């Protein structure tokens, strides 16, 4: 019987399919569709130290084979998460990874420190690349020196597996990946959304309240696969690949390019049961291909 368990550095997951940050809330909305303990892990809604109200509407707009979003990290803040969301997730035996974003370096450090003291969190994912918050991740996430110093500081305050999530809105993603690796990251995840814009021709102005938004969905998949491929060659760290995964053959592209695990985001909006079906289909794929583990295909496109 094929086994879907994966090891990503210090992190062991029962299967390699994660729910991507910001697309699955804190799980509650999807719990009526399937048991959340099926998830390889749930990367919860991006968390900031203080509650954030988010951006003015409209916040989303459909695009060909994808969508733009400018949610603006609406979230209940650290305290709200610990009090209102975490207990329910722990009771449901959900594998939890917390995605954090700061308005400055200090906030990242405080979040990492406080979350490390909380039992039942599997790993931290540092969002360096949210394009929708003015003071937020993006400015950290596009400069290798910034990434290096921030990741090094977070590394000093946490023993949790440290995932660094990279922005695709850069000229050379491999350079950023190396900076994160050299500063103590355990795992890299990629990609976050690509910056984009839709213009309302009747109103003659940008459609989104925030003017720009992050593009996600199948429209970005080839860009994301290429970036996973490049980063796999540049670093030795395990990778979590994402960007437009809807079906098993999409996930396999990422794995062949070098991702040890994958995350599903926008597809959850189209089909709430995308993740459990993907897990079943990966099982079926291994059995049909006569493979005992996905390890045999991770990075195989490089050989």
């Amino acid at each position, binding site marked *: 019987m094929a086994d879907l368990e994966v090891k990503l550095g210090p992190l062991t997951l029962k299967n390699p399919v994660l729910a991507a940050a910001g697309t*699955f809330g804190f799980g509650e909305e999807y719990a009526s569709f399937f048991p959340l303990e099926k998830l390889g892990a749930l990367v919860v809604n991006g968390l900031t130290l203080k509650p954030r109200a988010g951006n003015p509407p409209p916040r989303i707009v*459909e695009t060909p084979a994808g969508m733009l979003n400018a949610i603006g990290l609406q979230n209940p803040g650290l305290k709200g998460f610990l009090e209102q969301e975490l207990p329910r997730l722990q009771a449901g035996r959900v594998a939890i990874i917390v995605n954090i974003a700061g308005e400055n370096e200090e906030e990242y450090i405080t979040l990492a420190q406080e979350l490390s003291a909380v039992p039942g969190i599997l790993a931290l994912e540092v969002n360096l690349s949210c394009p929708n918050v003015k003071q937020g991740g993006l400015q950290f996430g596009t400069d290798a020196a910034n990434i290096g110093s921030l990741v090094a500081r977070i590394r000093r305050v946490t023993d949790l597996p440290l995932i660094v999530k990279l922005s695709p809105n850069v000229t050379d993603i491999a350079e950023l990946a190396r900076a994160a690796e050299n500063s103590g990251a355990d795992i890299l995840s990629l990609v976050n959304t690509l910056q984009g814009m839709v213009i309302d021709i009747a109103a003659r102005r940008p459609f989104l309240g925030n003017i720009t938004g992050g593009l996600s969905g199948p429209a970005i998949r080839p860009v994301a696969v290429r970036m996973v491929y490049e980063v796999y060659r540049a670093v030795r760290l395990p990778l979590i690949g994402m960007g437009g995964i809807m079906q098993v053959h999409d996930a396999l592209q990422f794995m062949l390019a070098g991702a040890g695990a994958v995350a599903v985001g926008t597809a959850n909006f189209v089909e709430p049961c995308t993740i459990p079906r993907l897990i079943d289909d990966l099982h079926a794929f291994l059995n049909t291909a006569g493979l005992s583990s996905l390890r045999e295909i991770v990075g195989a496109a490089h050989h």
Partner: protein
Amino acid sequence: MLFKACVESVEELARHSYYLLLREPQLAAQSRPGQFLHIRIGESLVPFLRRPFSLAGACPQRGTLEVIFRLAGEGTAILSRVKKGAVLNCLGPLGRGFQFSASRLPAVLLAGGAGVAPLLFLARALVGKKRRVALFYGAASRDDLLPLKRLLPRETAVHLATDDGSSGYQGRVTDLFAGAVRQGMQPVELYACGPRPMLQVLTKKNEAWNFPLQLSLEERMACGLGACQGCAVSIRQGEKSTYRMVCSDGPVFAAQEVEW
């Protein structure tokens, strides 16, 4: 929540307006006025997201659901061409729907264009509760008006308005109703659905009338479940405002709490 609903019929009811009859007994049994379906349009990547449509009716006895939609773009065009016997992938019933108060006040329903759909379901429910119901219904022109006779209980009083005066009052449905109030309408409960400018005007006018007023809102949606936080509307809470989700906290909101 996730259902495969069978298409019983699709027909063009008025210019660019379609009536879709679906069968899915469990879904029909759970559906309430003001709730909506989030329908996947085919399996391909364009159109990509699901499309939200209010329920225009649900009959638990027959196991059927009604949707009435206007052509707006690619998704509704494809939906207008589905065939009897086709299966539609539907999330629903979503949202919280209209609140029914214990009051015996007559109900007045104000509809602009395709916004009439959820109010048809509501009218039937209110008539079923023995409430007096009047529908004020506005559209661009006579050809855009749905044939209400077959869609509404006989007891409903209907007042029509068209922008070009080709049928009923010439002008806006909100002005038609304002005229009725000026002529000494007794207190009523108001329910409205329609284009945003109509709902804004109505809310403004109602500051003077002060009738209880519920609005069914629209906003761009992705998940439809409250997870993506994409369909935000600003809601007043005392001195403060907060964002609420049209899909899961609405789509129906009390008019006085909505910040436009």
